[in-house]
């Protein structure tokens, strides 16, 4: 039987919202005048909170939200496609940037580990099926390791970015390389079902797109604003995520 003395206001809150742990609680309250009075007082006060109502939005609100965000969605897609094209052109040039080269190599390794079958010349006897060599590689750990390296590189270039005083001082392709790699790792994380990591990489993408664009056109005012955003918003998050990826027991 439910102990009436031990029924707290917190229990009554759960009862109010239909989430009580004790199935006998409602009956116990109904049997007791004191508990009934307490419950009714709680209910009345919580009903008063219903006065906290937002201002109305008219029927066209959804359309106005769409009109506001549609150009951004389109810009992001176009920006990504352009930068992806630029990025691939950049990494296909004879002279690679460090980030672009590292990204291509690491993504190739990642693709291999995530389900591609590779054969070594001469390793498979004629007439036999090639043996998958990805079995010994843990895809999840490889993803964490490669994204960790990406974040380390990002940390280095972003630190350099916030400390430079000249808008044009950074190499023009560094942001593009970072953006391309970031997008590919995000897609890998999504494919692996790692929503937290994919979400984090998605969150930092818009700033990378903007930085890649600004690296091309250059603007004193925008440059300072972006330095502030990187310094105040991005750097810390990159470092925290990288720390988490380096802790094997706390994978995202």
């Amino acid at each position, binding site marked *: 039987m439910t102990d009436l003395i031990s029924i707290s206001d917190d229990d009554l809150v759960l009862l109010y919202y239909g989430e009580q742990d004790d199935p006998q609680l409602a009956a116990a309250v109904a049997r007791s005048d004191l508990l009934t009075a307490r419950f009714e007082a709680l209910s009345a006060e919580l009903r008063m*909170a219903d006065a906290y109502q937002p201002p109305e939005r008219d029927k066209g609100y959804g359309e106005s939200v769409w009109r506001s965000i549609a150009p951004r969605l389109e810009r992001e897609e176009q920006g990504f496609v352009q930068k992806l094209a630029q990025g691939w052109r950049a990494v296909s040039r004879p002279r690679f940037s460090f980030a672009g080269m590292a990204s291509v190599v690491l993504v190739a390794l990642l693709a291999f580990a995530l389900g591609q079958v590779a054969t070594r010349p001469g390793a498979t006897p004629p007439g036999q099926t090639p043996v998958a060599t990805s079995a010994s590689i843990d895809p999840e750990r490889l993803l964490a390791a490669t994204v960790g390296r990406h974040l380390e590189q990002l940390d280095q270039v972003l630190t350099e970015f916030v400390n430079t005083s000249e808008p044009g001082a950074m190499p023009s392709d560094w942001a593009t390389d970072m953006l391309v790699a970031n997008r590919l790792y995000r897609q890998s994380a999504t494919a692996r079902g790692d929503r937290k990591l994919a979400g984090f990489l998605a969150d930092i993408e818009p700033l990378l797109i903007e930085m890649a664009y600004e690296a091309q056109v250059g603007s004193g005012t925008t440059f300072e604003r972006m330095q502030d955003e990187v310094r105040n918003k991005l750097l810390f998050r990159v470092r925290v995520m990288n720390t988490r990826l380096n802790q094997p027991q706390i994978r995202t």
Partner: protein
Amino acid sequence: MSEEEQKTIQAAAAGDRMAFRELVLEHSQAMFRLAWRLCGDEGMAEDIVQEAFIKAWRGMDGFRMDASFRSWLHRITVNTGMDYLRKQSRRDQFESEDPGFETLEGAQWPSHDAQIDIRRETEAAMRDLSDTERAALLLRHFEGHSIKEIAQILELTSDACKQAVFRAVRKMRAALQPLAGV
């Protein structure tokens, strides 16, 4: 989730912007209400809604069809809203811009002003909650999410979520109790 909504979500996840537009039209009002209750400011709430939809678009390919799309959107909205609140002073954003409040200062209160009093006290009580307490309370009280769903949205344990709701209710009751029966 209805079959029609499932198809719309799948299309949006595949990159169909017009399908995503349908989702925006369907969920904007509810997201605005949630965002406003979280931050108390119309302009900020509108920004939160737009930003949340942008994030939802980017993350559509990661949405699992066996989950609740509404809960998923609420999670994004709450997280976006809490980011906004962390950046700006909560007290500044919660100041009422309704000129009606200023003109009634110090005046005799006819009975219909009791409603304004309750609303003002509720707003003040919500302002005094922590971001987590406010988010937990509005998701439970106004949006009808279960404690388990709220815990997933806010990335808390169920116990921590319950405690947040309990603290929020205690503070709310302390503010509203003097007005009970008015």
